[in-house]
């Protein structure tokens, strides 16, 4: 039982980690908590569903197209809404993301209704492998884990080895100095939102395939992703990933041994605990800022 809970925890933790990554990528560049993150992902999952079911295209076309949609959605929201704010405060920007969340939710409910849909997926949650005595992992779990790890690897490589990735990190640290280097900060922000939206969308595809698809799909994962991000210090990508896995496992263990009803509350208990012991999160690095 214990090893099974751990394994399922890791699998679900992978989706939290993806959501946490998505939120941290935006938070680092603009200090905005993006409350629309979950519903941007949800809408992208609906677009994937639309391409698969209504257009009858295969997975090989549907997922890349839906990810492309996710990228454009993120970029358009940044360009069309957040950038319009004149001399924005962080709080003002956060309110804008709350508004966007409502718009996206309304849009999905209006177009697709609120009934639960079966989200088709190429691998099944019922094909299982016994990897430890008494503990199984499904094909879908494996794909989830593999995709999450691959995406993380790609993101780390992008931020470490490409000029654009380093420029994004530079922009995150200081917009003014980035501009002095000739980095077009507005474009970087758009790109940030696009990439973040894609990461979130891929989490939504995986979550929708274990579950069903409806406009409330990402409500819980977004909260978990946010918790995982806080756990990891809000500004650290490895921290967000670790936070996601830790949260998934703890939550599952709690659900298995203590109480299923309060399983979801664990995330917040963990956050409160962490914030009491290490206010900057488990993985945050801190530099003394000059005044």
């Amino acid at each position, binding site marked *: 039982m214990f090893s099974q809970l751990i394994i399922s925890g890791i699998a679900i933790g992978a989706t939290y980690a993806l959501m946490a990554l998505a939120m941290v990528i935006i938070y680092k560049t603009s200090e905005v908590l993006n409350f629309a993150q979950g519903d941007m992902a949800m809408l992208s999952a609906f677009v994937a569903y639309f391409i698969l079911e209504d257009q009858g295209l295969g997975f090989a076309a549907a997922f890349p197209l839906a990810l492309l949609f996710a990228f454009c959605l993120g970029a358009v929201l940044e360009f069309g809404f957040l950038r319009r704010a004149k001399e924005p405060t962080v709080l003002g920007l956060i309110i804008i993301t709350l508004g966007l969340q409502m718009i996206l939710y309304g849009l999905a409910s209006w177009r697709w209704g609120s009934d639960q849909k079966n989200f088709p997926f190429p691998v099944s949650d019922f094909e299982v492998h016994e990897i430890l005595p008494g503990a199984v992992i499904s094909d879908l779990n494996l794909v989830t884990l593999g995709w999450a790890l691959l995406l993380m690897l790609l993101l780390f490589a992008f931020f470490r080895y490409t000029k654009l990735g380093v420029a994004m990190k530079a922009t995150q640290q200081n917009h003014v100095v980035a501009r002095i280097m000739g*980095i077009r900060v507005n474009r970087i922000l758009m790109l940030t939102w696009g990439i973040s939206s894609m990461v979130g969308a891929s989490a939504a595809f995986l979550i929708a395939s274990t579950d069903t698809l409806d406009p409330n799909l990402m409500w819980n994962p977004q909260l978990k992703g946010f918790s995982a991000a806080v756990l990891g210090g809000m500004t650290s990508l490895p921290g967000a990933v670790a936070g996601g896995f830790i949260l998934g496992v703890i939550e599952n263990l709690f659900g298995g041994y203590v109480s299923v009803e309060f399983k979801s509350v664990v995330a917040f208990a963990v956050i409160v605990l962490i914030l009491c012991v290490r206010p900057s999160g488990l993985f945050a690095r801190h*530099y003394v800022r000059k005044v």
Partner: protein
Amino acid sequence: MLEVRNIETLYGLVMALRGVSLKLSENKITAILGANGAGKSTLIKTVMGLIEDQPDKGAIWLDDKRIDGKDTEDIVRLGLAYVPEGREVFEELTVLENLLMGAYTRGGSHGKADLKMVYGLFPRLAERQRQLAGTLSGGEQQMLAIGRALMMRPRIMFLDEPSLGLSPLLVREIFHTIRLVNRELGTTILLVEQNANMALSVCHHGYVMENGRFVLAGTPQELMSDEDVREFYLGVRSEVSVKGFQRYKRKKRWR
């Protein structure tokens, strides 16, 4: 070359520059001296397009192109590099990454040669290239900030108080490098300094700024022999006893 014509810059309702004109000479070092709050940094920021909707009046020309009102990102691409006051390196990037960001606008294969040039000027950066910039000492950060600007291979480089907070030995080292860059690379330099001694020792031409306007200009020799510069910027007391009268006359000349 760069020419600033009678610009005025406002911060809200406060006028920080009140009609400033300046001409840089190609391949030369020009220095601006002035006390804290005189408007030296504001002048550079205005030229770099970093103060939104400013200058309010006047014009800034580069060769035969007018550059005021352009975006900073585009001004940089015309060959203007800026080493801001307080260094402002990217603390959470490595030394190498900082330098590569300096070369952000330059595509292609120049990177390697330029990196070698910068490491040649500042061997200490080469030793620390994998280290995070936030962990460097103040002097090393200043070297990094200058090196990063040089990676742009700029025509013109603005240096805002490069000696701020550095030990005398390091200050000398930095100024030595500034002179070297000017001579070897032919970079035109605008140097803003409170350390008048040092600035006048390297520059070919100098300006003195007070309250948002230039009150004096000349060669370093001329400036060094000026009574007020000697008294207020170089810390040399004048021997004249009837001070009140003299001061009055000088003040009048400045206006």
